[in-house]
């Protein structure tokens, strides 16, 4: 079956997407596990101990993938939001809704592991460097999106309002990042950001890439599971959802 012959728009309806999401969730969850295992093994066991930071630096194998994913997921979320506004599609909005908590979680992990790394590396949990501060603001953007969704009862208004917010946020993310970077160079001479990481041996890079893919597949799997729950909740009055519930009983 050629790719172009599949009617992709069929999957734009929540009812048809529901079973596909279930399959995708399973595949990506299964793929994520060996990737994570390999990445962790390479990073925690195989990679050499750093001369300056000892073994404490190994937390970057979680910190960096989490930070990358937190930014990547926000962009994907904003893209789904743009789709939902232009196509007036419910499912796109549901995808954005499903991604937000995972993105926020990765942001929290990045901040937390960053603080844990900061303590042994340069003596303080929080050093107000440009990247960590921008990451914190990114967390506020995620939380703002989720809070706005939660505050609006009517689902369509919630979809559209939070989509506008996500897009405004996405436009502002580079502006905020560069302002914070400028602010940081102004106020602190020492760069305590990622450039203080040990020089990347290729094995460390491989480990980080593996962990990043693992995090990416995990994010997809979790988003699929979550979007299924969202679909069921929002479409609960339709006949297909009722049939599903009836069959399950």
């Amino acid at each position: 079956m050629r790719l172009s012959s599949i009617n992709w728009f069929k999957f734009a309806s929540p009812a048809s997407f529901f079973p596909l999401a279930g399959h995708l969730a399973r595949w990506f969850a299964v793929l994520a596990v060996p990737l994570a295992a390999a990445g962790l093994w390479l990073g925690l066991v195989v990679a050499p101990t750093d001369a300056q930071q000892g073994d404490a630096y190994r937390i970057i194998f979680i910190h960096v993938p989490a930070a990358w994913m937190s930014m990547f997921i926000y962009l994907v979320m904003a893209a789904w939001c743009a789709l939902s506004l232009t196509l007036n599609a419910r499912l796109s909005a549901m995808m954005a809704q499903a991604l937000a908590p995972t993105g926020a979680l990765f942001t929290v992990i990045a901040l937390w592991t960053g603080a844990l790394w900061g303590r042994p590396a340069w003596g303080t949990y929080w050093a107000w460097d440009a990247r960590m501060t921008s990451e914190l603001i990114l967390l506020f953007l995620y939380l703002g999106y989720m809070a706005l969704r939660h505050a609006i009862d009517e689902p369509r208004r919630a979809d559209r309002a939070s989509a506008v917010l996500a897009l405004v946020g996405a436009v502002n993310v580079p502006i905020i990042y560069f302002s914070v970077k400028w602010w940081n160079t102004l106020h602190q001479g020492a760069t305590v950001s990622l450039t203080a990481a040990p020089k990347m041996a290729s094995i460390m890079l491989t480990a980080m890439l593996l962990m990043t893919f693992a995090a990416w597949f995990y994010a997809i799997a979790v988003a699929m599971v979550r979007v299924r729950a969202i679909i069921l909740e929002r479409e609960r009055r339709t006949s297909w959802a009722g049939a599903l519930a009836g069959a399950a009983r």
Partner: protein
Amino acid sequence: MSEAAAQPPIERGGWSGVAWALRRDLRLALRSKAELGVQLLFYVVVVSLFPLGVGADPMLLRALGPGVLWVAALLASLLSLPRLFAADFADGTLEQIALSPYPLPALISGKILAHWLTTGVPLAALSPLLALQFGLDGSELVALAAGLVLGTPTLSLLGAIGAALTLGLRAGGALLALLILPLYVPILIFGAGAVEASRVGLAAGGELSVLGAALLVAAIGAPLASAAAVRIALD
């Protein structure tokens, strides 16, 4: 009385829309002066709280001054934002505004302009006076006032987006703060940065230019985003 055959032009020019909204909102603001006074008072009180919190050491206050004055200006702005749309939303006027033949972004721009004139301008005018409490002087005061004049319109513009998104919601004010404060960060950084630049003898032109550029971008983008948000809220 009504000639159904007569057709007015489909869409009216933008500037008339700005003018209508500006005149009306200014007139309304002048008839409820108490609200304006409260918000200015809030600014004064917040600024005065900081020395009480950190001690009256002149060196410390000089270091803190720009940041404190700017943060207080942000908070005072936030306080006044719900006023932008909430009253019109409640009495049905906002719906009529959205249904007007004038372009909605133009009408919203007029409202934001009126908001700035009654909020940002008094703040910017008062700030040098308050800055004296923190030991700022001469060129720093100029940089502070200029920064606020350039920055407060952007605060109103970005705030309008948040105000429109949170129309009629329960936790409106706090939610608005959560949504808008991250967007305010660049304005804060460059506004306070301008004062500090002039403190060390550098011209604050660079920072002020950034604020000016931000204002231009916001002046174009924010009314469009706010219009979209207003229509969503009216749905």
